[in-house]
Each structure stands twice: as C-alpha cells, then as structure tokens.
C-alpha cells in the first residue's frame, strides 16, 4: 500500500524551505564576500599595513568593487580546452561549496503564525555522511577545471589537489568516528542538542572538551580540504604559476576563488556544530530563556552565537594563512598518511575503550 500522505504536496512546507534556502545561500555569499575583505584587511594588519581602505569608509565596498571588476573582465576560453567541462568546472566548485549548508542547523526552530519552522533545510539522520559525500564531490571542481584547461601546470595542480583532498578525507573521517562513538548519532541537529545538555548552560557539554585530539585532527584536515595555507599546494603561486584555475578569467575565475571562501564558511560552520555546540549559547539555559523572552528571540540569539563561533574560525583560517608557510608536497603526504591517520586511529581506540569501561 502506498503511504498516501507522502504524495500530498504541502505548499507551506515547500515555501518555507524555499525561503530558508534562499536566505542561507544569500547569507553565505555575503559572508564569503566579506571574508575576502577580512582576509585582505587582516593580512594588511598582520604585516603592519593598512589593507584596502579606499572604496567606501574603511574600504567596506572593496568586495563589491572586486566582484564588479571580475564581471567586466574579458572571458577567455582556451582554444584547446574541452569547452563543456571548462565551463562546468567552476560551476561544480561553487555548487559543492554551497550544498553542504543544507544539513547544518543554523538555529533552533522559530514560530511564525502558529507554524514551527526549523532553521535547518534538511534534518536528515545521516547529516555527517552527507557532508562527507559532498566534500568528496568537491574534488571534481578542481579536477575538471585543471584537466579541461589543457595546461600542464593546471593539470599538475589539479592532481595535487585531488590527491591531497582524498588523503586528508581519510584522517578527517577517522577523527570524526571517535566523536560519533560518543554521540551515537550522525544527525547534526541531535549532536547539537546533546551538547546543549551539558553543565554551565551547555558549555561543559561541548565536544571539544571530550575530544580535543579529534578536534585538532579534524581542524587540520579541514584546512587541507579547503586548500588553505599551509596546505594550499593546488594554488601554489610560485611553483605552478597560479594553480588549477590558471586558464580561467573573468567571473569563472571569480567563482573558483569565491568557492574557496564559501567552503571556508561552511566548514567553519561544520566545526562549530560538531565541536563547539553549534547554536548553543554558553552559560544560558535555552529552554528557561525561551519561556521568558519567546522562542523566536532565543533562536535569533542562538544564531548570533553560532555566527560568532563561525567568525572566530574564519579568523583562524586567515590568521593561520598569514603565519605559516606552505608545506612541501612530500611533507604534506607524510603528515596526512603517517601522522594524522595513526593518531586518529589511536584516538578512536582510546575513546572506544573508555566508553566501554564507563558503560560497564
């Protein structure tokens, strides 16, 4: 028998999800835009410069000017390139960057006109698996772009990028398994809710306190997955000219550069969700606060807290980039395969033993 209620189209449900998707995508894009600005500004400050300060007060219109510049640049598609794939590359890079945002709980639910709306696009029970799946797809953007350009340097960079991302995905997954042993759930929302149960308004429940090593490994792998310094080998300017997007120009190049920042934003969100309690406000008990000032306000505060955590990680990305030089390729592989994976396995073993001992 066909469960008939699955066939009924709920217009309001569709509309509210559509609005949420639109809001999240535009929010991610704006944040990514201003991360480029923050990158340049903080780079300037760290090098005792002022950074961009000409466009608008303090240069806050700089990302708009950059975007406008990219749009007006001449679009060049190399004659010997594979045109279909050449266009597909940046689109895929951007798409996979945005896709991950679907499973991240951006806040608790809000109430509008009697309806409870969850601030999560898809509350799937395999959230983390989904994240891993989409992140692996991210290799295609780099690979297709580098290969279809028909350029030695692009191809080299793409191969580097692909092998780097594949190698670090392993350690990333292994470090998360020890976290999953504790939570017992792949659902991102329930992971956040578990962390909110801890003492001090949730602060003592944050996973970072129980899995610091897993956090460290995960963070390093996230840096590698986002192709950020010290793992920015695919775009090593001084050895590969520019990297896998060397033949790209105009907004296609813009999409590639931009997808890096979107990736940074989304992975910051994932790290804060998994290890730093997501939208949990420290020192505050959300349920008692909700009965005092209403659910919507608490959701807003929760979202702001979440955003503050994300902003910290974005700053960390930039901070590390302007501090640490790039790894050599063999060092990169050495770190990934010989250091991080055994470390993650050891962490997994210890976690398993401790959980077994505590449950008995």
């Amino acid at each position, binding site marked *: 028998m066909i469960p008939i209620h699955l066939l009924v189209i709920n217009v309001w449900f569709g509309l509210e999800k559509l609005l949420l998707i639109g809001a999240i995508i535009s929010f991610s894009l704006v944040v990514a835009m201003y991360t480029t600005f923050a990158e340049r500004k903080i780079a300037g400050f*760290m090098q*005792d*410069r*002022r950074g961009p300060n000409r466009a608008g007060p303090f240069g806050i219109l700089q990302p708009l000017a950059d975007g406008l510049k990219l749009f007006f640049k001449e679009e060049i598609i190399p004659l010997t390139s594979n045109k279909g794939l050449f266009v597909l590359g940046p689109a895929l890079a951007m798409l996979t960057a945005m896709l991950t945002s679907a499973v991240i709980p951006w806040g608790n639910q809000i109430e509008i006109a009697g309806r409870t709306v969850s601030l999560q696009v898809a509350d799937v029970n395999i959230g983390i698996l989904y994240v891993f799946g989409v992140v692996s797809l991210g290799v295609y953007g780099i690979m297709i772009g580098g290969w279809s350009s028909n350029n030695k340097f692009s191809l080299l960079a793409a191969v580097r990028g692909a092998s780097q991302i594949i190698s670090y995905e392993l350690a990333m997954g292994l470090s998360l398994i020890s976290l999953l042993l504790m939570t017992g759930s792949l659902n991102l929302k329930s992971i956040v809710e578990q962390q909110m149960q801890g003492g001090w308004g949730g602060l003592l429940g944050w996973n970072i306190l129980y899995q610091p090593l897993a956090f460290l490994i995960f963070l390093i792998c996230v840096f590698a997955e986002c192709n950020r310094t010290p793992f920015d080998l695919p775009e090593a300017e001084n050895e590969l000219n520019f990297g896998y997007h060397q033949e790209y120009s105009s907004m296609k190049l813009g999409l590639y550069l931009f997808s890096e920042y979107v990736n940074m934003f989304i992975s910051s969100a994932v790290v804060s969700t998994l290890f730093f309690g997501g939208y949990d406000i420290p020192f505050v008990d959300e349920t008692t606060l909700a009965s005092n000032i209403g659910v919507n306000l608490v959701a807003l505060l929760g979202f702001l807290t979440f955003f503050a955590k994300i902003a910290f990680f974005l700053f960390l990305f930039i*901070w*590390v980039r302007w*501090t640490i030089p790039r790894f050599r390729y063999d060092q990169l592989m050495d770190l990934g395969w010989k250091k991080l994976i055994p470390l993650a396995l050891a962490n997994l073993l210890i976690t398993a033993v401790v959980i077994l001992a505590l449950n008995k």
Partner: protein
Amino acid sequence: MGQLTNRSRTLEQKPLTFWESLYLPAIFKGMAITFGHMFKKKPTINYPEQKRPFSPVFRGLHVLNRDEEGRENCTACGLCAVACPAEAITMEAAERQPGEENLYREEKYAAKYEINMLRCIFCGLCEEACPKDAIYLSETFAPSDFTRKGFIYGKENLLIPHPIKDKENYEVAKGQREQQIKNK
C-alpha cells in the same frame, strides 16, 4: 688551505627533539607574533589626505618671485642659467616699456623664462646665484604629465601669484619661506 676570513661557522644540525617535532608549539608561537602585529602602529601615511611634512631645507619646484607691490623681481641677468649644472634654464630678456613700471621692478625683465623640469636636478644653485631674490625653490614637487613638453615650465607656471590681487594663493605659494630666511 686555510680560511681567508674567520666568518665561516660550522652549522650544528641536531635532530629535532620530540617537542620540536610536534611543530604545534612553534606554530602557536608564530601565531602569537602575527597576532601581536595586528595592533602595532602602522607606518603607512594615507597619502592624499595626509602628507608627510617636508624638511625645512627641502628643495622643490621653482618659484619666480615678486616684490610686495606685485612687480617681478627677475631682470634676466642670466646668472641662474650660468649657475645651472643641468642647463635646464633658458630665458629671453626684454626692455621695460613706459607704463609697465607696475609689472617689472627694473628696466630689464625676462620676456621668456623656461625651466625644463626633466633636466633640473633641484640643486638650488639658481637660488644661490640670483642677486635679485627672484627665484627660489618651494616645497612642492612637479606633478606628473603625459608629454615631455608638459615638463617645460614657462613663466605662467613659475610666477608666484600677485600679492595684492591674489593674496590668498600668494600666501600659500610663499609657504614657509620667510621663516626659513629668518632661520638662516
């Protein structure tokens, strides 16, 4: 064969200790340094809004001087052109006609006075050579131009504004000259 200098040193390359091979302490140290730099004073000057003050002996663009009544000091004697090591100055003399006494201070004046700013080395010898206090070097430098012709400055570019008719610009152009003369 012995060493020519005693500057060479043998480098000691010890294997990394466990603490060093973790890398993380060194990374945190580096991050602390970069973080500290964020709050340091920036040496940059926001150029068009803020300008670095020139030193009192700065030698910039030339100014042809007038006296208090607005008459040109220059008598086209040519001493500046002779003194100029870069041969940047050319001039043509003319005789003052009756009725031009309010324009030129003495009977002879420079009808044409040109300085090629591409040749000029801003040494200030013209200022030192001038017996009439007619030329001096100011506190501005020559702006950029698209052609070489644009760097040949004529009288219209060099002459100081009229002290009575255009008092405001005259004061600006004169700058801190009086002060400098007093300091000498």
